[in-house]
């Protein structure tokens, strides 16, 4: 997969809490990218098998709103994104990014 700023930022946001369920809007806020950029990245990650998706339990919403879709890191995704961030850290293109807690 082509390494882009958006991919690295989404990877950092996902690895910030690898075992949690991630929701679209929260993820775009954490990653600091527009949803128009984030959703295609998520689709690519799903196709690679790095993410698994699912739907919120309808009972949990209380019938007030439709159930949301969530994303979870798979074991393969955890490994792949970890490697990706490790490589990005040494890449001059991503020098401006703050890897901090994600590494």
């Amino acid at each position, binding site marked *: 997969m082509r390494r882009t700023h958006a991919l690295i930022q989404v990877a950092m946001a996902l690895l910030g809490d690898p075992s949690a369920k991630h*929701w*679209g*809007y929260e993820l775009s806020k954490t990653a600091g990218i*527009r*949803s*128009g950029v984030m*959703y*295609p990245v998520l*689709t690519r990650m799903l*196709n690679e*098998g790095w993410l*698994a*998706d699912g739907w*919120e339990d309808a009972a949990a919403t209380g019938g*007030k*709103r*439709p*159930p*949301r*879709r969530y994303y979870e890191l*798979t*074991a*393969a995704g955890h490994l792949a994104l970890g490697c990706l961030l490790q490589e990005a850290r040494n890449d001059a293109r991503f020098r401006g990014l703050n890897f901090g807690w994600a590494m």
Partner: protein
Amino acid sequence: MGDVTELIEVVSGATLPAFLTALLVFGFAPGFVLRLIVKLYPKDDPRRRELVAELYALPRLMRPIWVAEQIETAMFEGASARTSRRRVKPKYSIGQSSGFERFLRKRSKWYRRRYERLEIQQFMRAVGGIEGLQRLRYATAMSIIRNIR
């Protein structure tokens, strides 16, 4: 100075009605507008449901901005999903193929590459990703592959 005032008047005169219309549409009927926008996605695409569901989980003030953002998402992702589906018809999945398709498969490298990549994606989904693949017996994996073909 007079020129600048005139320029501001022209710009504000032209954009104010547009701004008010946008505020009205995105502010009072964001759900309706978003449901129209997601029509750009193919019918069975889960993103249709997902974007609408996300809207109602947002604070009210953020909703018009979210809807406006989804125009970009739907135009790039939804429209391209539609066109790419049109290019590759899913005939390969049911084991029947036209003579033209068989010809393409044999002759065209582009078709073969695309065909095989789609098969692999479909296979990985069927077995439940890499974790599922590791648990699978060889014979079961082969029967899944045969079914896809």
